């Protein structure tokens, strides 16, 4: 797909915005607007994923080898719980995506969540950076459109 960026990259053409006509500029602006709103959505979902991983990581901290045999309430449905006992507290099952679950020991599990949180945070930083860049280009385009409109009138 076509990409818009302020920094020069291989396989990309440099375009002087002032040489484009108003229709081209507004298509460009529309495209950027769409991308920006997509970024916003992605940021929200990433934030949600981050919170989930953080919560799971915190939950792991609560389980230690001393917890073995302790009573817990297991949610069968959202509104029904049955009593159970903790067993094999050194191993946990983790959802690693696409319906696969892997058994990991405590340390590996903690490491997993730490890695995931780091990964998600990195992605968020990347998106924030790109978003900033694109909104700058968008502002420039709006300015040029206004300039051209004034020239026309």
């Amino acid at each position, binding site marked *: *797909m076509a990409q818009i960026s302020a920094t020069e990259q291989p396989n990309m053409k440099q375009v002087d915005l002032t040489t484009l006509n108003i229709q081209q500029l507004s298509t460009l602006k529309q495209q950027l607007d769409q991308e920006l709103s997509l970024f916003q959505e992605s940021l929200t979902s990433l934030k949600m994923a981050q919170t989930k991983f953080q919560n799971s990581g915190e939950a792991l901290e609560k389980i230690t080898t001393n917890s073995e045999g302790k009573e817990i309430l297991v949610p069968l449905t959202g509104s029904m719980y049955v009593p159970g006992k903790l067993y094999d507290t050194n191993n946990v*099952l983790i959802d690693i995506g*696409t*319906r*696969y679950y*892997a058994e990991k020991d405590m340390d590996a599990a903690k490491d997993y969540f730490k890695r995931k949180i780091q990964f998600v945070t990195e992605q968020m930083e990347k998106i924030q950076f790109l978003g900033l860049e694109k909104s700058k280009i968008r502002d420039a385009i709006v300015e040029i459109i206004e300039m051209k409109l004034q020239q026309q009138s």
Partner: protein
Amino acid sequence: MSEDLQRKIQSELDSFKNTQKELQKAISSRQQLDGQLNENMIVKDELDILPKDAKVYKSVGPVLIKTELIEAKQNVSKRMEYINKELKRCDDLITSMEKKQDTHRESLQKLQHQFQQAQVKAALHA
């Protein structure tokens, strides 16, 4: 004459809009595939760092079924292969749609230009 032109413009506009819709659909399915590929890549990375004797389960409906690690790995790479193929198909579709859209836009502009000229002519004769 102008009615004929108007009809032409209308039909061109309709096909332009149709192409636009199809393009949107192709783009959103591309995005979906991209997301699936990413997810599978992450799972693959995760499976790769698991120890050989790790227990892996696959959730099928409400139950977890124990799977061999190798089987899981094979399954994920097969899926990635499939998704990559689909992505390529989708990309081709998007390029051809974009081309189609451009030709429609061009002929639409031409027709509009003709229409305007016809109107100017009509105004002069009146």
